[in-house]
């Protein structure tokens, strides 16, 4: 008897026989496909999004039939392992799990977290040299020069010049912005100008300008409250990446990685 018990092949034959007999006696056990109301609603909504019209009763029936057939094929495909070794399925699953991992990044950040993220990444929130200035536009150099003379005598010249699509005043404009507006080479002529007096004429693609620089803003870090939104979204992105990495690291703990040949 002891020898019999120790015979795995025999056991296998016995159990298989039992299953065969049971299988014959029992009605075939079938898998269930449940068509939930929620699933029906989803099918109806998708139809409406794609065609613009509500599905009729008959259309809905046939859409549900299609869905059932698709579900059967889907399950069979999984059973046959067709999802294996398919790089698209693989990438899609990885992508989905990645999204879920990223979503587990915790609560709204505290302002202190944002402050510390901001100072660690201050280079991303540094503003270039910028100018704030008023300008008067003249089509010829002589009139510009004449008005500058008036200004030097203490006259108010702010209503002189020719109207144009250019603004009367520009605030916080970088050299790149200024050259995009007045033509290349304009911003370099602002270098070294003193503030709070009319100066010029400065030549642009449009003509001649008298310029009254109100402020020169040196390269500086943008105050946190002025960039809070973008710090917030950068920090969120950073946290997402972190959450993903933590998730991957935790999973990796369960694996032993072995390189072939090592």
């Amino acid at each position: 008897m002891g020898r019999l018990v120790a015979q795995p092949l025999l056991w296998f034959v016995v159990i298989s026989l039992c299953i065969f007999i049971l299988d014959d006696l029992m009605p075939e056990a079938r898998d269930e496909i449940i068509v939930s109301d929620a699933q029906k609603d989803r099918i109806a909504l998708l139809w409406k999004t794609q065609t613009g019209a509500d599905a009729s009763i008959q259309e809905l029936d046939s859409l549900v039939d299609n869905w059932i057939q698709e579900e059967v094929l889907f399950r069979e495909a999984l059973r046959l392992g067709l999802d294996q070794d398919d790089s698209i399925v693989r990438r899609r699953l990885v992508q989905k799990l990645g999204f879920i991992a990223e979503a587990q990044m915790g609560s709204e950040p505290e302002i202190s977290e944002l402050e510390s993220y901001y100072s660690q990444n201050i280079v991303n929130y540094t503003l270039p040299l910028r100018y704030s200035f008023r300008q008067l536009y003249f089509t010829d150099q002589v009139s510009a020069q004449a008005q500058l003379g008036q200004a030097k005598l203490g006259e108010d010249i702010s209503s002189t010049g020719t109207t144009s699509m250019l603004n009367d005043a520009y605030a916080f404009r970088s050299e790149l912005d200024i050259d995009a507006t007045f033509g290349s080479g304009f911003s370099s002529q602002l270098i070294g100008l003193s503030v709070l007096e009319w100066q010029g004429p400065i030549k642009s693609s449009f003509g001649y300008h008298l310029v009254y620089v109100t402020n020169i803003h040196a390269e500086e870090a943008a105050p946190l409250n002025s960039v809070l939104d973008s710090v917030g979204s950068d920090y969120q992105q950073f946290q997402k990446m972190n959450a993903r990495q933590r998730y991957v690291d935790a999973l990796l703990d369960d694996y032993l990685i072995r390189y072939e040949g090592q």
Partner: protein
Amino acid sequence: MTRILSLIFIASITVSCSDNATETQLEQSAELPPTGTNAAIEIPAARTAGYNKERNAYFGDLHVHTMYSFDAFIFGTTSSPSDAYTFAKGGKITHPAGFDMQLDVPLDFYGVTDHAFYLGVLREMANPLSEISKHEVAAGMSTLGGSVQRGEKFNEILAFLRSPRASEVNDPVIGRSAWEDIIAAANRHNDPGNFTAFIGYEYTATYSDGGNLHRNVIYRDDVAPELPFSRLDSANPEDLWDWMDANREQGFESLAIPHNSNGSNGSMFMMTDFSGNPLDDAYADQRMRNEPLVEITQVKGTSDTHPALSPNDEWADFEIMPFQVASFRSSQPNGSYLREAYLNGLKNQEEKGANPYKFGIIGSSDTHNATYAGDEDDYWSKVGLRDSDGVRRGSVPLREPRAPGENYAETYFNTWSASGLAGVWAEENTRASIYDSFRRKETFGTSGTRMRVRFFAGYELPSIDDGDLISKAYDNGVAMGSDLLAYAGRKPEFIAWVSRDPNSAALQRLQIIKGWMEDGEAMEEVYDVACSDGGIVDSITHRCPDNGAQVNLDDCSITSGLGAAELRANWSDPDYDAAQNAFYYVRAMENPTCRWSTWDAIRAGVEPRPDMAATLQERAWSSPIWITPVQ
């Protein structure tokens, strides 16, 4: 039976290592729409620093292909949507041929518009690990070589995609993955106040005779439907509009912008619908609701008008691309150009009571290099390795003539153009503000330079020298893209105003183009309304005197001291009749400069190709203002 056994086997394995709580949680999260939620309540956003109630001009490109477009990828483009947005903001990216591409001045707004059909599919075919790379038509895709081989492979794939077997390689899973990346890239790069990134795609349908019915679909918000509607869903643009209408109800606001009507062989602006019925109210409403704008110019030519349609317009022969898209078959002018469509719209209105052609104007590039293509002196054309230098695009002689007398490559790139920029007037640089300007049609197109064009009509407009001109014009009149009612005994006034691109040539002349119906006949006239260099418009010919601006073809230098920084005019129509349906739009013209082909030749040290125009006049077109008699 075997099934039961295998089930027992699988169950015994899975029970031991599954964690039910986690699985349920994962399933629930996976049910969330991955393209973002559809916010029903909108919180009014704070105004950004550049806000201006008199509106600023912003420039952008709404027609850009990246590695996800089937053609762009095979021509060598591996830059992603995110790379393209980085480029638009001033960043540098590398052309497939190895040189760097960068803008002198960054763009204000941008939309990546990859082809929806076979979205991402060719890129996946080149991935040797993918299932689709094993399909017979994908053979060789992972080892693509030079331009010629790529061209041949492209033609082979194109033939397959036009065959009944095409659906074998249309994988929506690949498409969806690409689409999600496109949406994420736009949302990541959108930076209210500084840079607007739109979500978009190209619907690339073709009429039965091969005429092009292409459109770009642009979304207002940060959400879009699960998958774009493509030509595989339907080749009939009316079905696209049904789909857009239905999606609008779900909160996905979008508009479609037709392009390359010039290559449509008359099918873009037909006088019947897709099934051949007359254009009625319902058609006009639906078309205008979904297509308020049309792209007037891009790399594949300009679609303002054609010399055969506008024989009295001396500037009609501008960057004409005579072929149907991607072929050497000629495209018939009728039904293919904007000005004629505006006229036909008026005609349809008088005859059938509906005007389906009341669209505004933008330009864009259609780059397939994930960048831009509107600079004459820094031209990258648009199909990667196929047209990356002068020899390939026919502006520089072949190293060895193909046949006696055949000294240049004969391709359709020869007829292409360094063109296409969209201009808008918007309060601030945000998605909402710029999208509203699309809907208002307060837009203009340029051939690539950054001229700014204003255009107003009304009955009590201020003088052009008024210091408060813009606010008074908005208060007392209507801006480009709008309608004005005509009253017997009253004559409307116009304000047309253009300011130069400070980094291009000065302005030569400012024009108003009028189209109208007279006794059932469509008529058109071009009026110069302001001249540079002290010129006066001739009251009979309506023309400015020639300002004599020249280009030196040895080095592309231009006559200095000629041309204007700005041109503007108070204008009223000398031939006005308040009983006529009419439209008016502005065309502003720069002094001549070198064309891309001439720059190519100079850099290669050869003469410009004799049968190509050596110079061109960069120009801008405003959206029209329509004047309709009170019934």
